[in-house]
């Protein structure tokens, strides 16, 4: 295998593993927060339904955690195996948050073990709820620390390079790099938002399947409220992320907006398709919007692709990814808003079938937005693995067996994905909420 192929397969394997891990990781970051809110409401209002929500979510959560843990272990090792040069360089400068992440894992793992096995051990339910706090903090900190590493790849700082060696390393400066604040905040907000909408999807699906229990209505109201709050937060932070890009990674912004020529009062290109390299067809142009997105003023100058040599421009298809992410974000926010207004005005349509189907769609759609967002961020950083410092093609392994490993992992993810889906479906189908409520009443 020549080097080009090794790079290609390493890329594909990295993309595959991350695309798969992020599904479980996102859920892993967001769901503890929702379990916490449900349990808290249950204790505060003395409402058995919320307690049961917390219990059932936890049972599903542990399955997704398991897959999150094993795929995470896979990436952790794979990054070293596939990108040895990158990890050697990066290890010198950004090892600190990676290392701190393992403590977050420890923390989460230990308290999750305790939480799972102590539902009935404490007289005072509030004590049990407290155990969830470290779980939620640990999960969110994992996301924070790993996103710091990723933001370092986008805006590396905190070291100098002399003769190919890193000197004057400042670990804290490397952690708190320019893209860190928006990135971390956006990743967290979207993880909470996505988890909330996924749980809303499940509730809505049960209602569609004929369960008319008030339990599902409570679940729906709670999850959509949370989802709405965080989807609005995600959009606001996303706007800041755009402003960050304009300042520090203008080539990524220009590529994702199909902004070819540097100009003032730039307009925003929505949708459209690209022909012959740089002809935009069927798009909608919103005057001044890009200048506002990038700099906050309608007349500001926005740097275009013309300022960059061709070999440093990321693939232009990220425009589609950006559109997918933003459209889903706005659509889901709108849906949540309509639901809550409908609920407030006691309208019937929010429990009609078509509306419930829309809610069912919101969870998977949010997950698609997560995937689109990450692909946008990562492909938009190309050709760099460490922006401005190390090119992706120079960082890959020189090993000959990457293609075999790719097939091996494709097999693994198919098995894991299917099995986790089957287990989750069976878990809830064999134990519907009506039965569980009756059991708990009977059993005392």
């Amino acid at each position, binding site marked *: 295998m020549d080097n080009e192929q090794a790079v290609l397969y390493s890329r594909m394997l990295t993309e595959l593993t991350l695309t798969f891990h992020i599904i479980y990781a996102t859920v892993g970051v967001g769901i503890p927060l929702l379990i916490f809110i449900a349990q808290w409401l249950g204790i505060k209002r003395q409402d058995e339904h919320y307690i049961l929500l917390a219990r059932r979510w936890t*049972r599903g959560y*542990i*399955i997704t*955690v*398991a*897959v999150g*843990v*094993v*795929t*995470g*272990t896979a990436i*952790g*090792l*794979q990054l*070293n*195996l*596939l990108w*040895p*040069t990158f*990890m*050697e360089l990066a*290890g*010198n400068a950004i*090892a*600190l948050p*990676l*290392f701190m992440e*393992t*403590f977050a*894992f*420890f*923390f989460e*793992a*230990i*308290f*999750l*073990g*305790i939480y*799972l*096995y*102590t539902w009935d*051990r404490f007289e005072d339910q509030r004590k049990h709820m407290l155990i969830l706090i470290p779980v939620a903090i640990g999960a969110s900190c994992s996301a924070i620390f790993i996103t710091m590493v990723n933001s370092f790849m986008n805006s590396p700082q905190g070291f100098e390079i002399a003769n190919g060696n*890193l000197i*004057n390393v400042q*670990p*804290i400066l490397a952690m708190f790099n320019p893209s860190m604040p928006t990135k971390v905040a956006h990743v967290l907000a979207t993880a909470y938002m996505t988890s909330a909408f996924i749980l809303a999807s499940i509730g809505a699906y049960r209602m569609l399947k004929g369960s008319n229990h008030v339990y599902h209505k409570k679940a729906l109201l709670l999850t959509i409220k949370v989802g709405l709050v965080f989807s609005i937060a995600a959009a606001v932070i996303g706007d800041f992320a755009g402003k960050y890009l304009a300042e520090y990674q203008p080539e990524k912004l220009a590529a994702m907006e199909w902004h070819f020529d540097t100009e003032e009062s730039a307009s925003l290109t929505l949708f459209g398709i690209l022909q012959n390299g740089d002809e935009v067809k069927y798009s909608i142009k919103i005057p001044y919007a890009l200048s506002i997105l990038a700099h906050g003023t309608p007349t500001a100058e926005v740097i275009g692709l013309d300022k960059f040599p061709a070999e440093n421009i990321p693939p232009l298809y990220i425009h589609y990814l950006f559109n997918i992410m933003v459209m889903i974000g706005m659509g889901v926010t709108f849906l949540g808003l309509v639901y809550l207004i409908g609920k407030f005005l006691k309208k019937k349509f929010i429990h009609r079938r078509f509306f419930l189907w829309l809610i069912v769609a919101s969870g998977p759609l949010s997950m698609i937005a997560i995937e689109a967002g990450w692909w946008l961020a990562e492909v938009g950083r190309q050709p760099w693995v460490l922006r401005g410092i190390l090119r992706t093609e120079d960082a890959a392994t*020189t*090993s000959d*067996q990457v293609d075999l*490993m790719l097939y*091996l*992992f494709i097999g*693994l993810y198919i098995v*894991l994905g299917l*099995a*986790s889906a089957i*287990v*989750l479906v*069976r*878990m809830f189908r064999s134990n519907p909420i009506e039965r569980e409520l009756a059991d708990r009443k009977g059993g005392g």
Partner: protein
Amino acid sequence: MSYELIGISVLWMFLFGYIIIASIDFGAGFFNAYSVLTNKQHIISNIIQRYLSPVWEVTNVFLVFFFVGIVGFFPSTAYFYGTILLVPASISVVLLAIRGSYYAFSTYGKLKSNFWTYLYGFSGLFIPASLSIVLTISEGGFVYIEDSRIILDYLTLFTSPLTWSIVILSLTSVLYISAVFLTWYASVAKDEPATELMRKYALSWSLPAILTATGIIVELRMHNPEHFARLVDLWWMFLISFVLFLITTRLIWLRRSYGLAFHVLVFQFLIAFFAYGISHYPYLLYPHLTITEGFTSEAMAIALIIAFVAGFCLLIPSVLLILRLFLLNKDYIQGKIK
């Protein structure tokens, strides 16, 4: 003490932690599967389930901690080992993934069937075997550099007696460590039949474990005389370790103080493991990489050590809590509380 020495000691300590708790886990899975095979499941699976359920995820973190830590402290290991371990480490990852997730699926997702028990049990033996290859490679002689590419010579690796002795050592120690622990655990649970069965396993694996360990030293003499010489210098550590081994087996033989027996066993392995580690010093990969060449910058080292101390202060109380609630809690072990 220099920073690199602190770093490698901490990592070695965590690797040791992983080896002990993962051995218990891997062995328990194996004994569980074996008991199904021989229709003795009713005797021990209850004990094994009660132990494993709350801790399996923690076990995994020890491993993650080790490999993240070693890349943090010694970034060059990412370059050397990352390149050569692509295949062996990927296989370990797949095995770990299957095993970990199917444990969760069957325990929490009620996916009950003997097939998973076997899969879980036997994959647990392949993992230590495949991970132990790393130790073999670190002895040198299997890696060469050609046009500045690092290449692992699989043929020499898989035909070397050293490789296979280390693989066998990893298996026998896994089963021995696990059996001793479970004997103790079962005795705390006041489960007579399980205690007796595990005691029998512990005794039958003790001899193979010590024999293979001695075998390695002999193999090394051929393979890496320099390392062998340094091992011999540390003869007194191995002697202590051997005496501790005798104490453990004696206690188990006499059916006395199983708890003490397990603790002595931990010390036996700790001493042997550190003796091995010290004699390996200063090489991370013989003869290409030493801990001073591969070390990170001083600023990063200090930051990592500070993070480690802070993290450790968080960790200790949490570990004590989980121990108090489950592992050292008689009522839990005996099944009086859930």
